[in-house]
């Protein structure tokens, strides 16, 4: 299992590191998410402040990372400043491959550094270095400063100014184009004074069945490049969703007031593909190249003086910082995404906040005095660029609260009916129906990717489900995805990695699990997380759902809160009744 059970602990307070062998965890929980949850729960202090330095931050990889195509994610588990409890986020890039080649299955960070610190890991060597020269730099600049031309697999992880200033939804950048975007991992690293990590791995991985491995690699690789299982992610990328969701009336527009955007075609993934897309970038061993990079030129002076910038764009950022703010020009949306990435914000929650601020300003809930004279109007790119900067620097009370999330903002100013957050996390761009909202609420990490409720709603457009079928599908999907995140697979490859192929791939590296056993482990992981969250007071029945979701028509019609509450009760009953048997 090539070092998977070797856990690298790094104590930021004491500036020391050590390795523990945890074969027990691998046997029980495979790797990735499974072991990250265990490592996190061993160290976290229940009920403590998310910024408490005793709470560990875990980065974990899994048994198929570094070996199979499109299995290229790293999972991070930490305490989230947004939810106040368990937090989880995933990132691609070279991190997973670098960690495996350096000989580890997970990295656990504990403690707090009194000075800004940069952690430089090269195989078994861990160095603590003064990060002063990196302070104030964007992650894009940090990546340029720290990147070398080594033949080892090298990954660079860093926070921007939003993280340094402990904005609650600061993201963590990985290798320039990838992010641990959600739930504020950047704030946690910033609160520990950790500006950057560089991981270089030059070891090797040896499958126990090399011939079986090579055959299966070829089969999976062919399935990825020769079938349409992942074609969408390669061609248009996730922005293909703009036209699809607009068509069915599920594309959040003007802070979810509408579900169709009149300029959808102008900003569509297809249009950007034809005009501004410059190149695609991939994670190790993935032939897809899902990261779509647009090239913009920004005029900074007369005389044909241009600043060339490259912007990584995807559907979620384009909805949150585009349609939801009524930006109708793709260049404007890309500039706003770029600015959000420069400071290092979660683009999704940032978009929800800017949309709320615009609406609150329009309704007179916040005034010119609150905004320090900034006039926030739908579609005004200059105002939005300015607002993002003010949030990053905390220029005035409104912007200081805005850096702490939507819940904090509405506690001060009101307007929670149209503050598009659930349990502290910003709502993603799919107003598809009940399954989307329910899935997001009950998901262990409050992500649309946890159980794909939005997909269940879209299937329901063609074939209706009973209430029982709907809630059971959400539960089963999340259990299976917990296994994928224990490998750690990219969700884009989920149609390639069917349960039987996952079983086969695990065999080549020494795991003998069958499909049923895997599903059971997936369910146990959900229960592990749910148990942690319950102990800290989380109860989905007590979470407020913004009224607007029950006013604006979704793809499956206007939703009733009463019916939603019934579905939630049904989910809780079936999910937890079956777990006690």
């Amino acid at each position, binding site marked *: 299992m090539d070092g998977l059970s070797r856990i690298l602990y790094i104590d930021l307070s004491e500036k020391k590191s050590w390795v523990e062998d945890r074969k027990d965890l691998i046997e029980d929980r495979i790797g990735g998410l499974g072991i990250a949850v265990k490592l996190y729960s061993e160290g976290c202090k229940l009920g403590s402040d998310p910024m408490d330095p005793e709470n560990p931050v875990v980065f974990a990889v899994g048994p198929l990372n570094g070996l199979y195509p499109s299995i290229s994610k790293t999972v991070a588990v930490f305490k989230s400043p947004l939810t106040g409890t368990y937090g989880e986020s995933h990132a691609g890039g070279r991190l997973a491959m670098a960690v495996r080649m350096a000989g580890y299955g997970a990295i656990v960070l504990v403690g707090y550094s009194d000075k800004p610190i940069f952690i430089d890991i090269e195989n078994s060597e861990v160095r603590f270095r003064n990060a002063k020269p990196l302070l104030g730099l964007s992650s894009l600049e940090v990546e*340029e400063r720290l990147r070398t031309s080594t033949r*080892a*697999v090298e990954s660079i992880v860093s926070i921007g100014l939003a993280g340094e200033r402990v904005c609650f939804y600061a993201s963590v950048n990985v290798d320039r184009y990838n992010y641990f975007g959600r739930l504020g991992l950047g704030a946690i690293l910033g609160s520990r004074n950790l500006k950057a990590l560089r991981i270089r791995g030059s070891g090797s991985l040896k499958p126990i069945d090399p011939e079986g491995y090579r055959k299966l690699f070829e089969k999976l690789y062919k399935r990825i490049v020769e079938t349409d299982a992942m074609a969408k992610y390669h061609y248009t990328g996730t922005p293909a969703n703009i036209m699809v969701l607009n068509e069915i009336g599920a594309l959040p527009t003007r802070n979810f007031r509408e579900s169709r955007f009149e300029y959808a075609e102008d900003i569509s993934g297809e249009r950007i593909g034809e005009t501004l897309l410059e190149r695609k*970038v991939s994670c190790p*061993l993935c*032939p897809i*190249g899902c990261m779509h990079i647009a090239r913009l030129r920004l005029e900074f002076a007369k005389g044909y003086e241009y600043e060339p910038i490259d912007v990584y764009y995807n559907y979620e950022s384009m909805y949150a910082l585009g349609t939801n703010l009524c930006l109708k020009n793709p260049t404007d949306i890309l500039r706003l995404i770029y600015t959000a990435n420069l400071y290092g914000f979660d683009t999704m929650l940032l978009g929800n906040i800017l949309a709320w601020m615009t609406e609150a300003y329009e309704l007179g809930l916040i005034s010119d005095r609150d905004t320090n004279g900034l006039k926030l109007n739908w579609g005004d790119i200059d105002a939005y660029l300015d607002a993002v900067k003010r949030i990053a620097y905390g220029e005035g009370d409104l912007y200081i609260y805005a850096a702490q999330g939507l819940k904090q903002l509405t506690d001060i100013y009101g307007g929670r009916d149209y503050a598009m957050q659930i349990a502290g996390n910003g709502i993603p761009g799919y107003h598809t129906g009940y399954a989307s909202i329910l899935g997001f609420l009950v998901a262990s990490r409050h992500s649309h990717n946890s159980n794909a409720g939005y997909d269940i709603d879209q299937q329901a457009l063609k074939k209706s489900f009973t209430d029982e079928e709907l809630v059971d599908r959400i539960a089963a999907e999340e259990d299976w995805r917990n296994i994928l995140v224990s490998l750690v697979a990219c969700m884009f490859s989920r149609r390639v990695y069917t349960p039987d192929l996952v079983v086969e791939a695990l065999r080549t590296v020494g795991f003998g699990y069958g499909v049923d056993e895997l599903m059971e482990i997936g369910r146990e992981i959900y229960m592990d997380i749910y148990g942690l969250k319950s102990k800290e007071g989380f109860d989905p029945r007590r979470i407020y759902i913004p009224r607007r979701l029950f006013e604006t028509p979704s793809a499956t019609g206007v939703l009733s809160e009463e019916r939603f509450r019934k579905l939630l009760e049904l989910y809780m009953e079936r999910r937890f009744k079956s777990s006690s048997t």
Partner: protein
Amino acid sequence: MPARIRLANPERCIGCMNCIFACSRELYGGILSPLKSALKLVYDTPSRKFIVSICPGCVDAPCVNACPHKALAEQPGGGPTLINPEKCRSCETRDCIKACILGVLFWDDERRAPIICTQCGECAKYCPHEVIVYREV
């Protein structure tokens, strides 16, 4: 003429590293390691480009000519082949590595020998965009 790998469309590289690991898998019997590959892929930040380097299989190859022990010979069609690994094991100077001006001949510390491109074409087989192709030249 035997087939050779060629860099046909270097600008199309998406940085997936499949070539690097296909090589290591082939040369080392299913083992993956970035240091056990006869190719190099760097991410060049000033140009924000991925730059792949392959062994072009030179005729009158500088690496072969540089070996003071006659441990290397030229393959049919060009490029080095290892004919006397024992000689390599005691070599301290590694003149072959230094002779490659493209910087694509690497030393394997474990085997104590250069990692030689056998021109097998595995890297091209797993390149999704024909950055590397395998063809008769």
